[in-house]
């Protein structure tokens, strides 16, 4: 009896010690507080699971806050009130506003010391330029930003007798395609829909003149805006021609990306320019209509004078470490984890056991919940270039991603929003005929210079 009691006590003590050791290990990296917008669970319960999974992976107690709305306001309020976070989700232009105020931690030395983050096979060296100011790094990455490219309604194209793989990669070539597709598309069908009020989806067309989107840093240190040069006039006038002939949906001048996507997905548009991930989403959203009644097919757009395609990648979605962060090392551990295979799976597939199950042979099966989340818990395309997707992509996404080598990063800084507003303002007026191409470009240049966007 005594022996049994002694054995039981020893066992309990051993268990207690094991538990203490586990929890000590689990919180070896302390506590990490994260303010997130896109990344994480889809509801409060799932957010807790996500934070738990992330905490286990990095050996820390992770708490994640996700505001219901007005994320920008919330970030401002929280930082202004002195609340302490270790990681905050932002987009690239916002990073520049905060860096100007000295509100961010310089991560350069942490990145250089990290075997994962400094590995150029994982994150190419030029990617860090997006989050650098004067050669210092101020953020880590949430995902790989993919490119935007042409998506064509393949079903209507074939109805119009067009072989989508044989389209002449010029403005005239696409003009003829849109014209033929409009003839068979039915009432309310347009050749092209765009989001000109935000000036973000025009690169495949300006590629025909060899003009890069956004603000371009030249070798002499000056900054120019190729869309606002004389060389851009033929492209703007091409868009104006499409508008005048009823091939460009007039709502392209005022509508949102949501409007554009709705019309394309319901077969009301021949061609749109959208993210590579959306090629797959269009086809998934079509449900049973895919592929007989609707198929989004990706194309790289027009070729420039040098014979190459030119596509644009999006503004980086990033994580910054505020200057008052309590656990910078923990925050860097999270950034490192996001750049691993396991981290990529958490950010895309979701939480194991909740969004998906892993079979004995390593294959992955989605649960009903996981299927509804469309492989997007913040990073449909994870950070690491070495990431291997265990499930595969939705229809035609692999083909869309094959055009990534033609895409380059669009430069962002504190004046990016001003650039977009000015280009959209005069671009709209050129396209609807209020201004001629030459007058519109002259006005664009004048205002871009006055606002300091062109230097």
């Amino acid at each position: 009896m005594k022996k049994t009691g002694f054995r039981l006590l020893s066992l309990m003590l051993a268990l207690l010690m094991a538990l203490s050791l586990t929890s000590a290990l689990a919180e070896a990296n302390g506590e990490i507080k994260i303010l997130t917008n896109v990344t994480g669970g889809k509801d409060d319960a799932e957010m807790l699971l996500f934070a738990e999974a992330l905490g286990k992976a990095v050996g820390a107690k992770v708490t994640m806050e996700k505001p219901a709305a007005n994320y920008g306001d919330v970030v401002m309020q929280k930082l202004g009130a002195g609340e302490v976070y270790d990681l905050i989700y932002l987009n690239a232009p916002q990073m520049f506003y905060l860096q100007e105020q000295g509100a961010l931690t310089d991560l350069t030395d942490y990145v250089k010391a990290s075997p994962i983050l400094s590995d150029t096979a994982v994150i190419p060296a030029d990617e860090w330029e997006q989050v650098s100011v004067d050669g210092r790094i101020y953020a880590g990455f949430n995902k790989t930003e993919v490119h935007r490219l042409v998506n064509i309604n393949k079903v209507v194209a074939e109805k119009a007798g067009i072989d989508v793989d044989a389209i002449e990669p010029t403005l005239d070539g696409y003009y003829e395609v849109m014209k033929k597709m409009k003839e068979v598309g039915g009432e309310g069908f347009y050749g092209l829909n765009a989001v000109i009020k935000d000036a973000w989806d025009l690169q495949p067309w300006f590629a025909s003149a060899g003009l890069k989107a956004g603000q371009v840093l030249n070798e002499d240190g000056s900054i120019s805006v190729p869309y606002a040069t004389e060389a851009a006039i033929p492209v703007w006038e091409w868009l104006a021609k499409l508008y005048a002939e009823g091939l460009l949906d007039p709502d392209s001048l005022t509508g949102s990306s949501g409007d554009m996507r709705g019309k394309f997905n319901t077969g009301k548009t021949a061609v749109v320019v959208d993210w590579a991930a959306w090629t797959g989403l269009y086809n998934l959203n079509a449900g049973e209509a895919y592929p007989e009644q609707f198929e989004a097919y990706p194309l790289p757009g027009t070729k420039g004078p040098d014979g190459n395609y030119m596509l644009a990648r999006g503004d980086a979605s990033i994580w910054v470490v505020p200057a008052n962060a309590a656990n910078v090392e923990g925050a860097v551990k999270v950034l490192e984890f996001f750049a691993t295979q396991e981290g990529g799976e958490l950010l895309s597939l979701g939480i194991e056991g909740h969004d998906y199950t892993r079979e004995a042979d390593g294959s992955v099966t989605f649960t009903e919940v996981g299927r509804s989340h469309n492989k997007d818990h913040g990073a449909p395309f994870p950070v690491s270039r070495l990431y291997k997707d265990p499930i595969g992509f939705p229809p035609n996404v692999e083909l869309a991603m094959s055009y990534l080598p033609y895409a380059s990063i669009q430069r962002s800084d504190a004046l990016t929003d001003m650039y977009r507003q000015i280009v959209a303002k005069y671009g709209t007026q050129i396209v609807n005929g209020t201004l001629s191409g030459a007058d519109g470009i002259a006005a664009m240049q004048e205002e871009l210079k006055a606002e300091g966007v062109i230097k």
Partner: protein
Amino acid sequence: MQDSLRAPGRSLLRRRLKQYRSIYLMILPVLVYFLIFSFYPLILGLIQSLQKERLLGTPQFIGLKNYEALFRDRNFLQALWNSFYIGSTSLVINIMMGTILALSLNELRSRPAKAAVQTVTFLPYLFSWTVVGGVWIYVLSHNGLVNGMLDALGLERVSFFTVPAWGRPVMLFTNAWKQSGYFAVLLLASLVGIDPEVYEAAHIDGASRMQQIGRISLPMMLPTVKTLLLLGATGVLRNFDQVLIMSRPAIKDKVGSVLLFIYEQGILKMKIGLATSAAAVVLLATFLIALAVRKASRYEGSLYD
């Protein structure tokens, strides 16, 4: 000696406080609320307008540099002018439309018809600009109702949101559509308060209905119009929701408001110093406009001054 001279004043104050203490106690919670949620943030904002913003760390006092940058910013000056132009023109249009609507409603003899028209015209006021703006964006779109009608009449379609010349008319019209019903309700209330015997006397004297409206109804509505003018004047520079929902790049130069400027600078670009200095300018401008309107309308004067 001096104490004894001051003593009567102090004791009068004490007597008054004691006499009306229950009233002061009732006012106290409201006063505290305004002190905490209105005046304290106002003072903080004014202080921030004199600082170089730092979301984290101690801000740096820079005097009037934010104000200098503000008045050198073409976009702020344009936004201030847009707000004043659209705000004041809207106010005048809304009062005029409200008056016409109130007078017309007053002439309706059928009660059900009166109630129906009043409800229909008042309803848009209850909806937020998110709903109203969304509806009008659709109605005025290139393939919307208005352009469909223009097409049917053989006229050229109009791009209301992409041609700068249409920016302000669209804002003024949609604002009048939304707000006139509210003004009409207030003006109708003043109309029904007029003693019917005055109209009877005028009728006996041979005045026509139009003369009665011109010589009795309109002058009797004047105090209400003055009140609406003064209250409306304090809101001339405060158009935000409508512009945020309905503005587009091509027309923004004509309709972009000063509150939209403050939102973009303060919230989107995190330039708190610039935003709070713009807010201070709006506060001062609103005060001056209200003062000018009060003086011009002879607010405290009587009808016969």
